[in-house]
């Protein structure tokens, strides 16, 4: 078990090194001529106006929350789906009930208009 994760660990280290090496290589090769005009923020040629880090609308938050709900649901359902072939019918129905409750929540959010883009 841990034996397998040694490979994953080595791969993660390699995966971290690859982009670092590429960016490092570019750092060695590239010209470095900084210029205040050049390092201006690119907003279609206009001078940036006001703060970038402003308050956003709550809509995004709802999407993230629905995503979280479904993610947690998936974590519960993965072990269920894994043993599905050994389960009796009523245990499968339990899983279906689990999904149906979430589908009801989705329908609720839909009916309340929480899924509309505003």
């Amino acid at each position, binding site marked *: *078990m841990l034996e*397998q*994760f*040694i*490979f*994953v660990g*080595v*791969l*993660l*280290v*390699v*995966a*971290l090194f*690859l*982009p*670092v090496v*590429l*960016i490092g*290589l*570019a*750092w060695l*090769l*590239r*010209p*470095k*001529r900084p210029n205040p005009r*050049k*390092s*201006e*923020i*690119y*907003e279609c040629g206009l001078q*940036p106006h006001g703060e*970038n*880090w402003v308050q956003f609308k709550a809509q*995004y938050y709802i*999407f*993230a929350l*629905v*995503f979280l709900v*479904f*993610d947690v649901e*998936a974590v519960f*359902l*993965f072990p269920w*789906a*894994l*043993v*599905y072939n050994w*389960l009796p*019918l009523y245990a*499968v129905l339990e899983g*279906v009930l689990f*999904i149906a409750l979430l*589908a009801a929540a*989705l329908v609720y959010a*839909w009916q309340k208009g929480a*899924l*509309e*883009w505003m």
Partner: protein
Amino acid sequence: MESLSRFLAFLADAIVNIGDWIRGLLLGAGLADPWVSLIMKAIGAIVVAFFPLMVVIFLIWAYRKVAARMQGRLGPNSSGTWAGPYGILQTFADAIKMLTKEDIRPQGIDKIPYNLAPILVVFASIATWAVMPFGPKLIGTDLNIGIFYILAFSSAALVVFLMAGWSSNNKYATVGAFRSVAQLIGYEIPQLLAVLTVVMVTGSLRMQEIVGQQKIPLLFQLPVTAFIFFLASMAEVNARPFELLEAESELVCGYFIEYSGMKFGMFYLGEFMNSTAVAALFATLFLGGWRGPWVEQAPIMGTIWFLVKMALMLLVWMLIQITLPRLRIDQMLAFNWKFLVPLALANLCIIGLVNKGITEWFPGGVSAWTRAGILLMANVGIFLATWGILAALERREQRRREAWRAAQVGEVEVSA
């Protein structure tokens, strides 16, 4: 003659044999066994990490060629600025250009997240390749959580886009990041539910086991699931109909607008790597991965089949990407939440019940073909029902529109 047959036997399972040869060499050099296995793992990891890179080098060229051919314009070719026969050196030219470009750091950026984001994008997409089955015995490591590991990394990578967008100190980048993450988290749900359906039918999270179960490729057993997975993964890699991230006309370039030089290159690379990973995942989950004729005699054929299926999926991805226009963000989110997610939920429940029903109905057990046939019929049923519901909704919408128009006309007549 004998050496030829030995050579053929070597070739039949070339990659595994080369691995065994290196292992023998290291053991012969007097290294202790744990060190040899660690070195073998490191070599394997480097090969696995470089595989998507190699594919992407080819893919960028192929994409530009196919796009040029389909849109009736000149792509990279050997005339004009010389880029090798058929323009095959184009990607290398691009890479050299990116390497030698100045790295412009805009003012007011949040330095650490800004520099970390391009690294983590590539990191996350390479990490998913750890459990991809390249052949009957060729796999980075066959984790018992297999497919869940891939989903976990692609989910954890979402934050990187927010990091890049937010640290760039640019309004377009921030809006772009928030929008594309809103899209990505949305489409992750149908993808998850499709994978759950696959896990349910194959009864395993192990990638090799999922491939092993597909005597009949799952595409022919669960076409609706494959369809959901395909659309959701198109959106996950920001392919054209779902491409908001690079909406040039609206958000200039999405969250990586302020990146230049190699850091921009990393995002570019990460995007193509993700497309490759998604194509490989579709080939594994629905097209039977390395399964195909002659695999038992020559395991190397398995790798070839895998590559062929992956290339096929990449071609489909390109054709859709090149042909279709972009959706608006509200249409895209509505399509996800009001079509794909309900369909995926219904699909999961129905397939679960039907498949269990087959087992309950035939206590003696059924052949794989019968089961596949019944599942296919259930899929046709789901498809027809979805079609019917959509058509009914469309008719209702049309009636409402006509009624509204009639009311308008009536008012005009009255006022006249």
